[in-house]
């Protein structure tokens, strides 16, 4: 079993590794700039942004937040298990992590269908341009995250899969939580 102790207090070894944290910071900055641009434009058109915000389904957004938080919770438990029992400790909670991530995508797809049926697609107005751009960009990250988690799960038997790989994939998955925790309040509740 490939198990070694990583000193996370070293500046070059944050949990998941320095490369994934550089990616996380870049993603956070990218989404941050887009959200600030949206709020700046919302200040110029407050009525349009408020009316558009009211046409979003807050209950869907809230349930999706709970799905992602629950998925992140089981991911954090998976990493704890891995640190205690080695990489095969991942088998216990990772399927539940993937399941809740899939629930998020299912509900988001239904919400998209609802919006398209109501004619609130991309190009409807400035608010919905931001809504589609930001949420679709986030959904792409969730899909990539799920593919990474499934490939880590399927590759557990391989010697080449290390604890660092598992921690890096967990960090990427939690990044999807972080981004959604900024998107949900600013899109669904702020204006």
């Amino acid at each position, binding site marked *: 079993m490939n198990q070694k102790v990583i000193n*996370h*207090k*070293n*500046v070059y070894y*944050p*949990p*998941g590794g320095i490369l994934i*944290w550089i990616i996380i*910071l870049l993603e*956070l*900055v990218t989404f*941050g700039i887009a*959200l*600030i641009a949206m*709020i*700046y434009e919302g*200040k110029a058109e407050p009525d349009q942004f*408020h009316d558009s915000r009211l046409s979003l389904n*807050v*209950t869907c*957004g*809230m349930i999706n*937040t*709970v799905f992602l*938080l*629950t998925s*992140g*919770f089981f*991911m*954090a*438990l998976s*990493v*704890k298990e891995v640190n205690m029992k080695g990489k095969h400790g991942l088998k216990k909670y990772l399927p539940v992590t993937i399941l809740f991530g899939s629930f998020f995508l299912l509900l988001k797809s239904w919400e998209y269908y609802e919006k398209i049926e109501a004619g609130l697609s991309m190009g409807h107005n400035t608010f919905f341009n931001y809504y589609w751009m930001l949420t679709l960009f986030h959904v792409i990250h969730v899909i990539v995250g799920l593919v990474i988690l499934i490939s880590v799960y399927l590759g557990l038997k391989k010697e080449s899969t290390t604890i660092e790989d598992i921690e890096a994939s*967990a*960090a990427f998955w*939690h990044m999807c*939580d*972080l981004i959604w*925790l*900024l998107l*949900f*309040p*600013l899109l*669904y*509740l*702020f*204006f």
Partner: protein
Amino acid sequence: MDRTITITWILLVVLTIITSLFSGMNGINVSIFVIVLAGFKFLGVAFQFMELKKAHLFWKIIIFAYLILFVSIILIIL
């Protein structure tokens, strides 16, 4: 199950529900409340779920500075 992670998850879910209760309200104070609560949830995920609490001080400062800068810019625009 890890107690700290479980408590963090419960708090995050409760804060999410509290935030959603403000969906029917409007005004600058509600906007400030919503963004500040989002900031706390962000830190909860970063420090507990992502185990940033175990990382070097540099990474903690970077994430904290990002959040402070992000929230400050939004509050200035408001």
